[in-house]
């Protein structure tokens, strides 16, 4: 790992200009298609929009939460990975803005639940959902960005001091009241302590209510108390998967700080969350299966046993649970970038499908699953947006963080770390 920080800027950004342009183009195209779709078949357009909103937002947020956890538990095994995760925060403000176009669709989504129980009507009044959703997501975004900001601040300031990196307008803003490297590193550590905690507190709450309001409530009869947990776990899992993709890609480019050990640690983490995700699915399934209460079962049966959703659901489960579980049982698989990359992609794709199956069957009356140009277009648009925002981040900020000061706090720590890794 390069000790002298100048080298941090010599590393090439993960995305070159061409790729960036492609992404921007893609997002523009997506927007266009969305527009056409809305005019053509709003119901269908908005539901796929919601799917992607949940998917990409969750991906970015999940990754940032990972960074926060990494900081809180004072992990030391892969700083680069942390920074790559922080990078995903760049999409959060975009995602936040993408929430608001949903407004016209809310009546579409919550008309039924308002009819079913007028008592709950006020709670599902589109305006109210809009407000609380906006506030929740807003807060979540702000906290996440601040966390990342504190993580960046030291190198930004350092860069300015050394007159590196021309984009003064941005750096100027970020490095307000710079007090010198040593001090800044400590300050940023403290700031990150607080904000990481903030992120970790805000995340479950925001995402629980996202799950309840934007997915569960689409079906006016169904409810499951675990659904919130399930959703934020799966979003975090999604974040990890996305991260795995990025890490695997960069590892093949030989990015320093990402050795086979980092890969395999990341692999173990993904493996762990495969189990976690499975547990969340299972905990709901077994209870609903056993109780066999119509108000619960209809939601599950519709997706797992009824045409046309069953094949989609099962393939989603296969991609999200089965594949990673089997593959990651092997130790070597976790160190192989190709396998990591493909598993990462598989999980991400699977989770996109999962979001799709959670949302669409509640809204879509037809007996053919709507998967056509609208869906592809809108998804592509989101992909583009996520892409260029991520690229943007690394065009401005180094891949290797300065905080926490790299040398491990005590040799015993390193010692312990070696020891267990050897036995693992």
């Amino acid at each position, binding site marked *: 790992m390069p000790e002298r920080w100048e080298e941090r800027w010599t590393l090439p950004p993960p995305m070159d200009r061409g790729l960036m342009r492609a992404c921007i183009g893609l997002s523009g195209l997506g927007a266009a298609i969305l527009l056409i779709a809305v005019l053509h078949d709003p119901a269908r357009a908005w539901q796929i929009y919601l799917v992607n909103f949940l998917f990409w937002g969750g991906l970015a947020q999940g990754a940032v939460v990972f960074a926060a956890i990494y900081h809180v538990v004072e992990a030391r095994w892969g700083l680069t990975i942390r920074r790559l995760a922080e990078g995903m925060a760049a999409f959060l403000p975009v995602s936040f803005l993408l929430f608001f176009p949903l407004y016209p669709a809310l009546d579409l989504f919550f008309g039924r639940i308002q009819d079913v129980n007028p008592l*709950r009507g006020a*709670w599902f009044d589109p305006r109210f959902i809009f407000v609380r959703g906006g506030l929740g997501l807003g807060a979540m975004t702000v906290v996440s960005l601040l966390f990342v900001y504190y993580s960046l601040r030291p190198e930004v300031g350092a860069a300015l001091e050394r007159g590196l990196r021309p984009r003064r307008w941005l750096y100027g803003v970020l490095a307000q009241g710079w007090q010198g490297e040593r001090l800044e590193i400590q300050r940023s550590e403290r700031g990150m302590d607080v904000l990481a905690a903030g992120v970790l507190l805000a995340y479950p709450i925001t995402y629980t209510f996202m799950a309840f309001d934007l997915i569960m409530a689409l079906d006016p009869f169904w409810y499951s108390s675990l*659904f919130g947990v399930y959703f934020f776990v799966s979003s975090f899992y999604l974040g990890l998967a996305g991260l795995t993709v990025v890490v695997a890609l960069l590892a093949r480019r030989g990015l320093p700080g990402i050795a086979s050990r980092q890969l395999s640690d990341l692999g173990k983490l993904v493996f762990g969350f495969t189990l976690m995700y499975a*547990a969340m699915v299972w*905990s709901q399934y077994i209870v609903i299966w056993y109780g066999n*209460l119509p108000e619960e079962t209809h939601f599950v049966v519709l997706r797992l046993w009824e045409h046309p959703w069953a094949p989609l659901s099962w393939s989603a489960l296969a991609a999200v649970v089965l594949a990673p579980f089997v593959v990651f049982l092997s130790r070597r698989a976790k160190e192989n970038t190709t396998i990591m990359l493909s598993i990462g992609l598989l999980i991400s794709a699977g989770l996109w499908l999962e979001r799709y199956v959670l949302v669409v069957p509640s809204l879509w009356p037809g007996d053919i699953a709507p998967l056509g140009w609208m869906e592809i277009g809108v998804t592509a648009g989101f992909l583009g947006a996520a892409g260029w925002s991520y690229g943007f981040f690394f065009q401005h900020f180094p891949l290797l963080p300065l905080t926490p000061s790299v040398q491990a706090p005590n040799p015993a720590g390193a*010692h312990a770390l070696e020891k267990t890794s050897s*036995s693992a």
Partner: protein
Amino acid sequence: MSDLTYSQVDRDILRAMQAPGRLYYVVFFANLLVLAWGIFAWQYTIYRGLGVWGLTHPVMWAMDITNFVFWVGIAHSGTLISAILYLFRVRWRASVYRTAEAVTVFALLTAGLFPLIHLGRPWFFYWLLPYPQGGGLWVNFRSPLVWDVFAVMTYMIISVLFFFTGLVPDVAVVRNRTTGWRHRFYAFLAQGWQGTDRQWRHYKAAYLFLAALATPLVVSVHSVVSWDFAQSVVAGWHSTIFAPYFVAGAIHSGLAMVITLLIPLRRIFRLDTYLTQTHLENLAKLIILTGLIVGYAYVVETYIAWYSNNVPEWQRFVYQVTGEYAVLFWIMILFNSLVPLLFFVKRIRTSTPWLFGISILINIGMWCERFVIIVTGLAHEYDPYSWGLFIPTWVDISITLGAFAWFFFWFLLFAKFLPVISIVEVKEELPPPMKSTGSEA
């Protein structure tokens, strides 16, 4: 701690195993009395019938199952600390995990009794075991209670294995320093351990895999326990969040129990060098986490009760908050999810009295939680005509106290007969004696 030498470690930890003082005996026999009383209460139940408990129609489970869930819960923190933290390479676990594991084993010994005690015809308990029975009958594998049998049995076996495996190298040390029957006893436990590289290699491997197995197991066990309730259709029981909620709750209570036991242990055996304030502080931090999870579950349960638009669900919630058992409910909210937040304050989580007090409150709170879930769910079921109340009798209470006595009976023996801190792992945490770095052992 890093200025310790290997032999110093041996001396310090073995000191705890010297012949006990008067206080120990007083406590031990007082405890024995309570235990005897509890056993009497149980025998009386068997003789007269479950009618001597406060149980009634519709509340057919109450303190019996509460105790069962409570003790299984206590067990969980042990495995968390010894297995999960091991996998996560958390260094500070070394000095606390032995005690935590002992808590696991003894808590399971206690919990395991209740499925037996609570039966209407305990003398037929073996009918719950999977073996071909009269008329080609087997157990009903669809029943959560059978899952319980498997989960708890497995858990008990695995934790005992884990416990004794971890003990072997330590016991070898003890073996070398004892004579007479003690020597023979420890020699037996040590299984002829000498710490050859071969032994160590396979030992470490086995230990790692046991840890890897124990981790999903511990999660499954309390999930299964939670499903004793969640699989039913009882309003307030049938809830998908129960599994993770119970697991978190279990660890919550377990950590509290570990703190409750470590603090006096550390004081009496003067182990402050090994059980430092940071150890307790870290446990306290974990408690913040579990406390938050449990609190989250309370909130979500409430929200869903309202959201579901399910009349019995909501009425039961209102009853739980305002009915005869409301006090217990509020105790549970206060002690389990609010009081632990005090640990956010560094001064509190680093002060032994605070730690001790709060950990005891959490123990109380978690017991209440189980009671509230079980009893309020049953007391106000679907048919209002059959609503009813559980009012504990002296027998209920005696058996509950007896269970605590039973637990402490084993723990007291443990404290005197086995090293309460893992000698080897503490040594591992020390930098090895190196001529090059001049560090000595």
